[in-house]
């Protein structure tokens, strides 16, 4: 397969995953905000933190309120991390890779792009937003479904899978970072009162609530949620599962000797951690460390398989 194609498919995988994650996180966050009382530590600004976009936001908007944050994260073409931008990039990448996958996959991505492009206003009111986000989540799943059902599980498929799992692990760590607020010693009484709701929503934003209930069969606690979302081998959005998916792709891809080392070291480090004893700062550092490792893996993938700039 062409290096150029591999690169496009990898980014396609990342952007479709990012779109789905963004849509789900925002949709869960909205419903959470309706449940929480006013004036709590958790507010719209946390959403910006999760996306690591506080600075970009401050450059484009004045006030951190629902209207601005939603516009920024969903439909703002000036923000590279908005849902609209993600879908535009996904579309550019698949448009130039159409010969590599079933046509329905292209049509699906194109439809989602057109939907958000033409329905910008509907994202401004809550009701329209819910409908739009649902459509996007379902669209991303249909995309994944088309590939699972009609695409050879070949190298092309593996590059999409690489992108998807690196993006997915990254998002899981970003969402868990909210745990550093929830675990803080000095958190308000009001927050302690809603803790349970918040951890439930963390699970929901990763589509993990049902599976967590089924597999842990315990009341919801911070240690269990962290342990489940980072270390569980079977849950598709847990960090360890994503790592194993990436390693599984390596086994079949050419020139991948030694590439798994970085991730093996990460897995070993994760296994050693006791999430029932972790401090907020410890958690934050750990999540940072995971993100750095993922970044390293991304760089290795780029160097090994993609078109080098110097060649162009």
């Amino acid at each position, binding site marked *: *397969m*062409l*290096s*150029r*194609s*591999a690169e496009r498919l990898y980014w396609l995988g990342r952007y479709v995953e990012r779109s789905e994650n963004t849509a789900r996180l925002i949709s869960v966050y909205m419903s959470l905000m309706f449940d929480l009382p006013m004036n709590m530590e958790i507010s719209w600004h946390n959403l910006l933190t999760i996306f690591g976009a506080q600075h970009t936001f401050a450059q484009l908007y004045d006030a951190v309120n629902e209207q601005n944050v939603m516009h920024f994260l969903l439909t703002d073409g000036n923000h590279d991390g908005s849902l609209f931008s993600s879908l535009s990039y996904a579309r*550019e990448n698949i*448009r*130039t890779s*159409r*010969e590599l996958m079933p046509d329905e996959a292209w049509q699906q991505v194109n439809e989602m792009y057109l939907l958000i492009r033409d329905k910008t206003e509907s994202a401004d009111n809550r009701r329209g937003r819910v409908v739009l986000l649902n459509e996007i989540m379902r669209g991303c799943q249909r995309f994944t479904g088309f590939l699972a059902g009609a695409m050879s599980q070949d*190298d092309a498929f593996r590059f999409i899978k690489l992108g998807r799992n690196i993006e997915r692990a990254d998002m899981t760590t970003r969402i868990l970072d909210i745990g550093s607020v929830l675990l803080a010693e000095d958190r308000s009484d009001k927050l302690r009162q809603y803790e349970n709701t918040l951890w439930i929503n963390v699970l929901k934003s990763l589509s993990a609530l049902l599976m967590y209930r089924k597999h842990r069969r315990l009341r919801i606690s911070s240690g269990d949620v962290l342990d489940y979302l980072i270390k569980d081998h079977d849950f598709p959005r847990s960090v360890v599962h994503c790592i194993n998916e990436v390693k599984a792709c390596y086994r079949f*891809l*050419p*020139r991948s000797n030694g590439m798994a080392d970085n991730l093996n070291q990460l897995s070993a480090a994760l296994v050693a951690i006791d999430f029932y004893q972790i401090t907020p700062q410890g958690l934050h550092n750990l999540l940072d460390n995971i993100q750095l490792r993922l970044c390293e893996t991304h760089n290795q993938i780029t160097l090994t*398989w993609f*078109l080098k700039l110097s*060649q*162009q």
Partner: protein
Amino acid sequence: MYNEQAFINDGLIPGYIIESSTNFLQECKGMQPKHGVWANICGSDLIRDKDGKFYVLEDNLRVPSGVSYMIENRVITKKVFPELLQDLDVLPVDDYPAHLFEMLVSVAPDYVDVPRIAVLTPGIYNSAYFEHTFLAQQIGAELVEGADLVVQDDDCVYMRTINGLERVDVIYRRIDDQFLDPEVFRKDSVLGVKGLLRAWKKGNVALVNAPGSGVADDKVVYAYVPDMIKYYLHEEPILPNVPTYLCSDPQQLDYVLKHLSELVVKPANESGGYGMLVGPHAKPEEIEHFREVIAINPRNYIAQPTIALSTCPTLCGNRLEPRHVDLRPFILQGEHSYVTAGGLTYVAMKKGSLVVNSSQGGGSKDTWVINTGA
């Protein structure tokens, strides 16, 4: 033209016409592409005049486009009129990609068993990019851009893949000659591949269509095609040319300049309907402008009588109106030759317009050849 030039030496065409064509490439002299074929893919535009006879309007031998629309149009018609198609025994057009594939395989260098084929595209901003993707998909070829290919010191072409460099044997190129190889042609081309012509001349890669084949696309050379058919094949042409006045000939030039308001004037080496004058529809200042540009470079212009292109009922808004059409069948030639049973009908969407090119706002129509059993 690039070898014995018998047609010139026997006095059937003045040598300067060939040598001065902007599509004639000195670099190609002496080359002998496989099966003796330069233009493996050709789209000839046919029209029907008021006498009901078909004429060849022009030959497109560089990188003719539109074949994907021919196939997609049929897909749509099948959905909309399933009964009609079944009852009428319409000949299929969707076998084109299979024939294209066969042709490309047949021109691969002799020592290759299973050739690797690539479609070379200028990239996503080209108006025919959809077609490049479509064809690559249909024939299972790699769709590559210039930066994906590299010519090594062994004069072979390789593409950059996740496995490292892999050899390419046949390139269906969809970029113009001038952009193919910055080593030989335009130095500023970022679309092409350095050394590509070198690899081709060594016989290490097949280029389709061969560089330089556009010389037969020159509208002045076109006027000589019926003579070429007689000369080389000892046959009469089945379809006549549209009568053509060559501005390079003083007598014909004189006639053209006197009758500009009745004629269609075309530059010899443009495509896509650019730079044309349709005399009967032109404003006086446009006619004066053409009078000047023809005088400056008469070799570069031809003129033809304004033909009343046939019309076809066309849905305009919510009613049917007549619109002018022309028909482009596609011809493949490698080891064997093949002509599509049908083709792409271009339709001028503007009322009364005779310019059907899609780059000038033209549309297209599915076109049926019906098997009558005769």
